[in-house]
Every structure is written in structure tokens, then in C-alpha cells.
């Protein structure tokens, strides 16, 4: 077991000073273990070095990595690994890197995966990520050769050339150069046009490392000079302009060691060249329709949580609704989620913080929205459930996080000093039980039937009364009219009198018949408005004839009048028949009233 804690006193002193003077960003447990090959593309027969690095600011004991005995496509040529220690200070943080190096020879063509390697650091077990390595058959590459690529060039490489709006695209400005060349220095231009994109640099400022790659059957060394995360702000074809890199190169006098510095030493064949990338057109797709989802403009892979604290407060105290959006994507561009809060909540200006991690894989981190809410009134309030959606470009669909509902209890502040205005509470309780229901249908007042009855009734009444009044006035002023109108009444009166006399046990036949004659004379003269006295039977009958009196009734009247005239001299009617004569006369009177 190699002892890594044997630092010199000087190094210990330097580290102690850094620990006291400047804040440390790395905790004692912030140890990273990484494995990498010197080249991920090699020809058959070439050597490749596996390097396992342990980075951290404070670790002591590291065990030797558990390297598998045989690895497909590779043959180990070193029994014991070589080790090295390196110290660096980045952003004021001192970091120690301890590394193990193993040398392998690429034996057979193909793509292989070097498995994860386990080792212990200060008693804690760490695993590296598996690494892929491509071994190319040299003779095959030679057959495909003649790529015509220049000795040195720059190229802009995008992780996705057909992204959706807001999707994170990693743009790398890569410098390719052939092995005889060494790059002494380089300068990238600041006028790299990326209109339509929000651009965030993710290069940490460290010296780029060159790795060996094979392009068109030829070996190149590749160094990523700049790395940006781009987020398209609109859909359509967006152009990324040409980037310019000015480099000073020289022809190396010796074959570079793969892990030698990217920058070569001083030499005689030194020259400066200006390199330019080709502009790239990126077809940015619009986001699919979100429908009725509650989106916040997020595109990436996220998890969203909401916590509300505390769950119980006193009236007037502040409540925090903290929403955390965590993940990889356009964190800086997302909007604050909106919640349906009870109206009594006084919402103050929300606070927003963003903590971004810029790594080679892109931008990740956490964005926190903190709503400060004050509730003035005691009670139980519910903050309803919400479903927040974002677009996941990897799965090419919307993903959602369900934020559960939460109930907040707001209690009255017992210690609060009573204000000048006394707070009122509504003491009215809701009505429960059976209630009387009615319809919302409202009829216009003109649809009430009684309105028309109420208007028509007095009109009819007045009309009737008017007629009645006219009649009364005529009765009073027109004697003949009055006689004619009252004739049936007078006749009826006489007939009743005759009836009474006829029904008497010793009825006088002459008196009754005389009364019947008078009745007939009276009704005829009254209806004809002529004088009642001074008429003979013939005269009366003549008047009836003139009025076209019906023949049958005429004969009846003629017969009755004759009987009345002769009865005084020779009574021919028995007392028993008098009632019959009265009734017969009554019928004749009715006929006279009808005709005259």
C-alpha cells in the first residue's frame, strides 16, 4: 500500500495557510476518482496508457486499484503501475492529484469497454466509470487513407444539430493537428456570433489536453479550446458564425509523449497561423404544443420539488414556499411556477437563486424560487396540488412533477397587541338541512295573467255601467220607452193577480176574464206605444195584423178576446178552466213581447 501522507513540512505549511486564509470549496469528502486512457482511438500494436487519478484536497491512504487480469483487445505490459503526485491551485483551492499509470498494447481491432476499477481512499470505496476504447486495424485505415485534411485546422462540433427551443447544446471549438506539429500558444477571437442562442461558457480555464484521434485513417491530436452550452431562444434556422483561432505552432523535433503538455517547448520552426471554423446552420425545432400543461419554459432533465414551511404559523408571520428545480438544462431561462394561493395571502417579491455547475457534460444545477407570503387572518388554508411540466429532449416528450397539496394552519397571535381597529369575525353560520328551492327562471312582469284581468275587469265594468246609466236616463226621460220596457212586468203583475183570483174557491169568472182582457190590451198598447184606452177588439186585432203577428197566436188572441167580451153576458167557462185561461194568456203575453 503506498503511503501518500508523507508530505514535506513545506507542503503541509502551505496547505495549512490556504486552509486558514481562504474559504475552502471542497469538503474533506470531496474526492474524485477518474480513469482515462491516453488515447481512446489507437491502431493495433500501439501502446496506450490507462491513468487512474484521485483528486482531492485532503486524503491520505489510497489502495492500489483492482485492475482486471485480462481486458478484451488489450494486453498489459506493466506489472507494477507507475505513480505520481501533482499539486494544483484552482480558484484559491489547493488540490492534490495522485495517479496510477498502467501501459497496455492494443492487440485486436474493435471497440472495447474497460470495466470499472475499484479502489479505497481513506477506507472509503470508490469506483471509476467504464471507458470505451476503439482499436483500429492499421492496414484498414491505410486503405481508406487520403483524406486530404490539412495538418492543422479548427472545427466547431455540436452535440445536437437539430435541437428544440431551449435545449442545451454543447458547442466545442476543437483544434486538430497532426503529430509532427506542436502548438506553442493559441488565441480565440471574442467575436463568435451565436445570435438566437443564449451562450454560457463551460470551459474552466484550465489548459486544454490533447488526445489522439484518427480522422480519415490519419492520426490527429485533438484539443478542445472552448466549450459552450448553447440554448436556442427561437425556432427556425439559426446560424453560428465562424470562430477564429490564432495559433503559434512549430514542428516538433521529437515525437511527443501523449501526456506531454499541450504546449510544446521553444523551437526554431515556429510560425503563426490563423484558423477559422466553418459557419454552421442549426435547425431549431419548435417545442411541441404543451396543451393545458402548466409549463415553466424548462427544457432538459429536471426534478421539481416544493416545500412550504412552516406548516403552522401565527397570523402576520411569514410563510415560505420554496420551489426547487434541479437538473440539467436551461435552468437560467425557466420561469417561476405560479400557484393558486388563497386570496388572503399577501405575496411579496419572490427571491430567486441559481446555482450552476459547469462541467464538460453541460450546465446543471439547481434554481430556487422562494415566495414570501404573509397571512393576516387565522384559519386553515390549503395550497392546492400543482403539476408542473417541462420538455425532456432525450425522451422527446413532456415530463411532469406533481407537487402535492399542503394545508397551512394560521393561528391567532396570542401575544399580538390589540390594534386600534378591532378585527371582526363573521358569526353567521351556514344553513344546513332541508331548504326551499326555486327556479332561476324569471318571468317578465308582462307575463302575469292577473295584469290583464286587472285591466280588463274595470274596463268591462265601466262599459256595463255606462250602458246601464244610459238606460236609466232613457227610462227617466222617455215615457213610451219606459212603458214598452215595463210592459212585461205590468202584464206579469196582472196575470199573477188573475191567477190568484182564479185559484180562489169562489172565483168570479167575469172578473178574471176581464183582467185577462186588460192584460192583453195593456201589453199590446204598451209595446206599440199607443194609448191604452179607447180601443176595440177589432182595433187591437187590426194592430196585430199590421205587425204580421203569427197566425196561430193571432187566432188564440182573437178567440180569447172574444171569450172575454162575451163572458159578461153568458159565462161559458167553468171555474175549473180559469187557471188554464190564465196560463194560456201568459203564453200569449210572452209571444207578444217577442214579436212586438
Amino acid at each position, binding site marked *: 500500500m503506498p503511503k501518500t501522507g508523507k508530505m514535506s513540512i513545506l507542503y503541509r505549511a502551505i496547505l495549512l495557510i490556504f486552509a486558514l486564509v481562504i474559504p475552502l470549496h471542497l469538503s474533506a469528502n470531496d474526492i474524485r476518482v477518474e480513469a482515462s486512457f491516453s488515447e481512446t482511438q489507437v491502431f493495433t500494436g500501439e501502446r496506450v496508457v490507462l491513468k487512474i487519478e484521485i483528486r482531492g484536497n485532503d486524503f491520505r491512504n489510497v489502495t492500489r486499484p483492482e485492475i482486471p487480469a485480462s481486458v478484451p483487445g488489450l494486453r498489459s505490459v506493466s506489472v507494477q503501475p507507475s505513480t505520481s503526485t501533482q499539486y494544483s491551485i484552482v480558484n484559491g483551492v489547493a488540490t492534490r492529484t495522485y495517479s496510477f499509470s498502467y501501459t497496455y498494447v492494443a492487440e485486436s481491432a474493435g471497440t472495447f469497454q474497460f470495466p470499472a476499477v475499484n479502489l479505497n481512499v481513506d477506507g472509503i470505496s470508490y469506483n471509476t466509470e467504464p471507458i470505451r476504447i476503439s482499436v483500429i486495424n492499421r492496414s484498414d485505415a491505410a486503405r481508406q487513407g487520403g483524406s486530404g485534411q490539412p495538418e492543422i485546422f479548427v472545427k466547431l462540433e455540436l452535440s445536437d444539430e437539430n435541437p428544440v427551443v431551449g435545449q442545451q447544446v454543447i458547442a466545442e471549438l476543437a483544434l486538430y493537428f497532426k503529430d509532427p506539429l506542436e502548438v506553442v500558444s493559441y488565441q480565440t477571437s471574442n467575436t463568435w456570433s451565436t445570435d438566437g442562442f443564449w451562450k454560457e461558457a463551460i470551459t474552466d480555464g484550465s489548459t486544454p489536453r490533447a488526445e489522439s484521434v484518427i480522422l480519415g485513417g490519419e492520426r490527429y491530436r485533438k484539443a478542445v479550446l472552448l466549450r459552450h452550452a448553447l440554448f436556442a431562444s427561437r425556432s427556425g434556422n439559426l446560424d453560428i458564425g465562424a470562430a477564429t483561432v490564432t495559433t503559434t505552432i512549430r514542428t516538433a523535433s521529437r515525437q511527443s509523449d501523449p501526456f506531454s503538455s499541450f504546449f510544446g517547448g521553444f523551437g526554431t520552426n515556429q510560425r503563426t497561423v490563423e484558423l477559422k471554423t466553418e459557419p454552421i446552420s442549426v435547425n431549431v425545432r419548435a417545442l411541441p404544443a404543451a396543451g393545458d400543461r402548466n409549463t415553466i419554459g424548462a427544457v432538459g432533465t429536471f426534478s421539481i420539488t416544493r416545500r412550504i414551511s412552516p406548516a403552522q404559523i401565527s397570523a402576520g408571520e411569514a410563510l415560505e414556499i420554496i420551489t426547487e428545480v434541479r437538473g440539467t438544462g436551461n435552468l437560467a431561462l425557466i420561469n417561476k411556477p405560479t400557484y393558486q394561493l388563497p386570496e388572503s395571502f399577501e405575496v411579496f417579491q419572490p427571491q430567486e437563486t441559481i446555482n450552476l455547475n459547469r462541467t464538460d457534460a453541460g450546465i446543471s444545477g439547481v434554481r430556487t424560487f422562494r415566495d414570501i407570503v404573509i397571512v393576516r387572518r387565522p384559519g386553515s388554508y390549503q395550497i392546492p396540488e400543482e403539476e408542473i411540466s417541462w420538455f425532456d429532449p432525450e425522451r422527446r416528450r413532456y415530463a411532469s412533477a406533481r407537487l402535492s397539496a399542503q394545508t397551512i394552519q394560521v393561528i391567532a397571535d396570542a401575544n399580538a397587541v390589540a390594534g386600534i381597529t378591532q378585527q371582526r369575525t363573521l358569526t353567521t353560520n351556514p344553513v344546513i338541512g332541508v*331548504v326551499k328551492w326555486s327556479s332561476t327562471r324569471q318571468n317578465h312582469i308582462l307575463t302575469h295573467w292577473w295584469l290583464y284581468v286587472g285591466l280588463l275587469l274595470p274596463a268591462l265594468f265601466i262599459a256595463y255601467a255606462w250602458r246601464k246609466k244610459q238606460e236609466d236616463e232613457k227610462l227617466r226621460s222617455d215615457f213610451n220607452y219606459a212603458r214598452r220596457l215595463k210592459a212585461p212586468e205590468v202584464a206579469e203583475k196582472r196575470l199573477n193577480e188573475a191567477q190568484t183570483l182564479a185559484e180562489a174557491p169562489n172565483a168570479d169568472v167575469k172578473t178574471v176574464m176581464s183582467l185577462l182582457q186588460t192584460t192583453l190590451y195593456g201589453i199590446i198598447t204598451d209595446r206599440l206605444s199607443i194609448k191604452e184606452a179607447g180601443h176595440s177588439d177589432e182595433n187591437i186585432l187590426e194592430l196585430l195584423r199590421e205587425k204580421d203577428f203569427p197566425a196561430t197566436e193571432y187566432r188564440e188572441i182573437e178567440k180569447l178576446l172574444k171569450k172575454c167580451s162575451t163572458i159578461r153576458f153568458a159565462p161559458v167557462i167553468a171555474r175549473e178552466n180559469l187557471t188554464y185561461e190564465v196560463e194560456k194568456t201568459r203564453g200569449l203575453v210572452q209571444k207578444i213581447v217577442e214579436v212586438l
Partner: protein
Amino acid sequence: MRIHLIAIVIALTAFGSELAEASQNAQIQFNEANQLFEESRYSEALDHYLAIEATGSISGPLFLNMGIAATRLDSMGLAKVYFMKAQSFREVERAAAEGLSFVSDELGRRGARLPELTWISISNHLYFGTNYTFWLIVGVVLFNIGGVLFVAHWLRQRYRNVNKIAGISLMATGFAILILSITLSFHVKNYAQAVQITREAQIHQMPSADSDIVQTGFEGFEYIVNRKESLGHGEWLRVRMSNGSNGWIRWDKVRKL
């Protein structure tokens, strides 16, 4: 004839049973809503109450409970609307008045009050506080009494002149009340009373958010909505405020009574 009678009886029975069923359903929903209210789930209870109203069944207790639920949700504008509606039902008139008083105090505490002009107050009373059916009945009764007295002056000599003058006066008054009630009831159909239910809303000079702002309205403010002028303006309502200002407000900022 008999067939007609049977058809009428069947139709009336069917209509009656339909009404009874509607009332029964409303009562079941009302009980469920009350249960939610007792469990302090005011928002859900209010949704249930609203669903009952949407079916066309209404009652004083329904609007009263809606008003109380709205106060528990601290939605004082909405509570005002429902208490105002409840006030027109005799059985909950007092409770609704108490609720309105509470809402008025709460809104007053928030400091947003709008002075009401006298003529606006009169207009409000005339338009929305007048029972035109009652005045119609008064008009009909006066017209009929007048008619009887007028006829009496023809038929009876006693108090002939008194009957004549009283009859004509009462008939004329009754008829005038009738005509006025009918005319106003038609006129009022062009207007509606509305209450602002959002905390703040802008009253614009024109039916557009880009036009000049006439005034800012606050929760609980009462408006007279001109239905006729609002027609054809989509989401905008032509309103008159209590201080006499005219303008346009978005429909979702207010709730009509």
C-alpha cells in the same frame, strides 16, 4: 274535451314531478356541499354550491352559504355578490345583511372605498332595488278601485262628485304606475349590477387593454353594467362606477348579480 283535460292533467303532473326531482337533486348536492364546508374544505364546498346554482335551482340558504364560504376563502368581493343575492330571500335576509356588513367592514379595512353619488344611489335603487311586480299590483289595485268609484258616481247620487274625482284620480294614478313599472322593467333589462371580485382591476377608456386607464377598481366595488353597449365587445363590459365614472372593464374582473 275529456281527452284535453286528461292531457293537461298528465302534463301538469309530469311538470310537477320534474320540479320535485330537481329540488331533490339540489337538496342532495346541498347536503354534500355542507358536509365539505363542515370539514373546512371551503373551496370544494363553494364549487359544489356553484354546481347547484348552475342546474337552475336556487335558494336563500344556498346563496348565504356561498357567501360564508367565500369569506372563509377571504374572497370578499365574491362574498359580497352572494350575500347581496341572499338578501332577496326573506328567510335569510337578516343573516345576509349581517354578512354584507362584515364584508363591507373587511373591504373598508383594506382602505379601498369609492364615494357614491346621490343620483347613482337613486339609480341603483330604482334599477335593482325596486320590485316592479309589487308596483304592478299596486297599479292594478288602484286602477280597479278608481274604476269602482267612478262607476259609483254614475249610479249613486250620494258623494257623486267625490266619487267622480277620487275615481278618476285613482285610475289615472294606477295607470301611470302601471305604465311606469312596465317601462322601467323593460329599461332595466339593459343593465345589470356587478361587483368586482379581484383585488385590483383597471377601468379603461376604450374596450382595450392598451387604451387609457380611467380609474383603478378594487375588490368589492360596485358597477352598473350596460348590457346593450357591452354587446359585441367580447371580453369587455361597459360599466358605470359609483362615483359616476364610465369605462370598460374585463368581464372576468367582476361578477354580475
